[in-house]
């Protein structure tokens, strides 16, 4: 679940918090697990929902943060700009390219981001992704296609800016 969380929220600290929350939710809700899905699907679903909650809370905070300074007082650096994310599981020789990949993933809409991460980072079959996200198989296929198309567009822009 940590790998899923860090790939979606792109923040190791937040991913740890989410993992803790997932553990606690699973522990407290285990008796109500109705076995309509597998245990792993259920845990993935809890993880994905907590990641999406985190992303929404982050956007709400940014929206209401207009009273804060945009820059750090001591360094003058942008206070709310996101640093390039380096996934700890990427092979050393691919780190540079992976930074661009995750930058592009970050630009996707939440559902596209989630589907792409589950398909390409977690390498789950689309049938499982549909169950986790409570979507039809067709919806997952469509989201994945749109995600890839948007990633290509974003990467083309990044390449042009380099």
């Amino acid at each position, binding site marked *: 679940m940590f790998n899923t969380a860090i790939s979606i929220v792109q923040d190791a600290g937040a991913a*740890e918090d989410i993992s803790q929350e997932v553990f606690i939710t699973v522990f407290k809700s285990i008796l109500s697990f109705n076995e309509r899905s597998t245990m792993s699907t259920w845990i993935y679903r809890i993880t994905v929902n907590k990641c999406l909650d985190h992303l929404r809370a982050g956007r709400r905070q940014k929206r209401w943060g207009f009273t804060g300074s945009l820059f750090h007082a001591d360094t003058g650096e942008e206070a709310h700009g996101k640093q390039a994310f380096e996934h700890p599981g990427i092979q050393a020789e691919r780190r540079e390219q992976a930074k661009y*990949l995750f930058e592009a993933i970050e630009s996707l809409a939440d559902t596209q981001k989630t589907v792409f991460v589950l398909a390409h980072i977690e390498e789950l079959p689309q049938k499982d992704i549909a169950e986790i996200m409570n979507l039809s198989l067709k919806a997952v296929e469509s989201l994945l296609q749109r995600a890839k198309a948007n990633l290509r567009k974003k*990467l083309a822009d990044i390449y042009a800016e380099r």
Partner: protein
Amino acid sequence: MADKRHTEKWIEEVLDSSRGMSRAQPEAGLYERVQGRLAQPAARPGMLGGRRWVAAAALLLAVNTASVVFYAERSRAVAENKAGNPFAAALQTTTYNY
């Protein structure tokens, strides 16, 4: 044309960069932290936290003070009105004589 080919090649390499990646692991101690949280007693529902108690008390005090001031001002105004208008009492009596 060559530019476009370079771009496409670069995009493919980037999309492929997650191939062979290992699963990220959390820092050591995560499980102990979870155990610690599970061992904490759950907060009773409806209990206000410290800061909320202070805010509620401050609001109550403000409402109370405003009421006291309002009624004091009103009493003073009524008393002044009676003193400044000797016919007020007579008018009232006149009304009651109907």
